[in-house]
């Protein structure tokens, strides 16, 4: 899978592992993301959808180069075709790539909202007009800028977090679960802003567990499971239903959506500590064969999308 043209962001075979303490001071390595490949182009929203605990946030942290000290990332990441070294990542952070974090705990509890949204640096003050504009778009009052994080409601906090990313001139926005806690209307509003940003030519990586909401705004959806992507489909495919999807897990996800029967999938997502040796989805898959249990399938192209399955047609 070699891509010749330059993606805005291109992640190839990314693995992230942690050094962890087991009970009794023994150390071991825990692979949280394995062999993950995604790419985003300008003008595009890519949603990474998967249930919680599947390591999605770490993907965001890996791209930004802000993984904790006991984590190691392997693989290839390129931004505008250039390899992302730690130095390059440092240059990109907050300037070219912006993060919309998960929760209000990502705001300094002792600093007013306005100062935090404006950010550090000499030109923080110059962003004030932009702040007014963005607050308006996100239905925040200008006076909200004087509040402290603990005074924000859940929805307000999300919108403040979104505003931190929008205010810079970043070309790539990584939004880590930006909508939970918002009312439907506000969530749509926030996503609409991401859509507008994408239409302006920026790339948006939307990390979410809400496939339903992602469908409406994303161009492509990467189905994330136990630390890797199982399928890359256009959101059109998801709207098209089970038949146009490729991976059994994506199909199950589709069936689990309220409007499609609300049918839950049996079993649990494997924890990073005891991943199956073959296909990660094999233990829960009805199409599972002997081969699936021993060999990890590669990502392969199928009907204008990608799938990680031997049997998908």
């Amino acid at each position, binding site marked *: 899978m070699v891509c010749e043209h330059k993606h805005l962001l291109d992640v190839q075979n990314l693995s992230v592992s942690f*050094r962890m*303490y087991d*009970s*009794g*001071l*023994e*150390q071991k*390595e825990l692979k949280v993301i394995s062999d993950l490949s995604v790419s985003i182009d300008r003008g595009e929203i890519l949603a990474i959808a998967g249930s919680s605990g599947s390591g999605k946030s770490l993907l965001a942290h890996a791209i930004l180069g802000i993984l904790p000290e006991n984590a*190691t*990332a*392997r693989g*290839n990441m390129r931004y505008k075709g250039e*390899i*992302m*070294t*730690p130095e390059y990542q440092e240059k990109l952070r907050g300037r070219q790539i912006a993060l919309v974090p998960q929760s209000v705990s990502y705001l300094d509890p002792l600093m007013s909202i306005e100062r935090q949204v404006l950010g550090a640096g000499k030109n923080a003050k110059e962003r004030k007009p932009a702040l007014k504009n963005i607050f308006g778009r996100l239905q925040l009052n200008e006076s909200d800028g004087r509040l402290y994080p603990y005074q924000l409601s859940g929805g307000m906090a999300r919108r403040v977090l979104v505003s931190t990313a929008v205010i810079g001139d970043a070309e790539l926005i990584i939004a880590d679960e930006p909508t939970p806690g918002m009312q439907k209307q506000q969530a749509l509003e926030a996503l609409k802003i991401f859509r507008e940003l994408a239409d302006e030519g920026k790339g948006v990586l939307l990390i979410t567990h809400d496939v339903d909401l992602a469908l409406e705004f994303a161009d492509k959806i990467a189905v994330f499971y136990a630390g890797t992507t199982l399928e890359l489909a256009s959101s059109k495919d998801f709207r098209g239903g089970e038949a146009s999807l490729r991976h059994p897990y994506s199909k199950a996800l589709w069936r689990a959506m309220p409007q499609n029967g609300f049918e839950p999938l049996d079993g649990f997502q494997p924890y990073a500590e005891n991943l199956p040796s073959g296909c990660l989805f094999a233990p829960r898959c009805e199409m599972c064969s002997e081969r699936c249990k021993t060999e990890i399938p590669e990502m392969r192209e199928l009907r204008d999308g990608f799938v990680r399955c031997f049997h998908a047609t």
Partner: protein
Amino acid sequence: MNELTIRRNKAGQNIKETRRKKMNRRTKTVILTVLIAAVIVSALLAGLLISDEAVAIDFANAKQKPSFEHPFGTDWMGRDLFARTMKGLSISITVGVVASAISAVAAVLIGIAAATGSKALDSFVNWLIDLVMGVPHLVLIILISFSCGRGLKGLLIGIAVTHWTSLARLIRAEVLQLRSEQYIAVSRKLGKSNRWILVKHILPHMIPQFVVGLILMFPHAILHEASVSFLGYGLPPEQPAIGIILSESMKYLSSGMWWLAFFPGLTLVLIVILLDHLGDNLKMLIDPYSAQE
């Protein structure tokens, strides 16, 4: 290949190295703990076993500098300072052990009572802790010692009274946390009595806390013991607690007998450091997560 792979290789090696080092950290901790405990116990025994002859007055050998014969030197009455120090140390350790044991037991009882009892009891305990923390410990110990007419009793009570507060707070928080655990709720739903839950679920969890809290209390207790006897409270001068040896040494500082002050103090510091390490190691063995940094 490129910069990134180089960094990764380095990181990969780092992982391997630390892994090998940390793999046997537990064993190392165990060995270290046993060694420290052995040193402390032998210091205690040495002090108890040294005969009174070794610290007998011998004016012929008075005011000698440290030598092979007298590693810590001799004092103005010719008593061997090393023997005196070891004796003093064993007294200090004994006092520290007894006082902190009393204090730790009290802390556990008070902490559990505060967490499981009524709200009024809880706020009373909090108030009591504020009270004990409100008077500088040395002043309180002086007062208690005065009330007992000085001597060992006052010293023990004083140290015990001033040391239980932080462990009691810890135990209280721990029990409150335990009480909110699901399995406790399940037990309660199953109709188990509070007493049953206390004995079966809560007390077993408190034992490691108790042991670690007790050991971490030792060094403080010993330092307080030394301080109070230095001030002239506590033990009578015939019993050479470290504090008393140091207090006596003050009179001879100006005559240049530096060893009188230096060695006993240094020994005390060493024991305190060892006890601190012992506590930290035990904590690491019992509760690896909290001890991790």
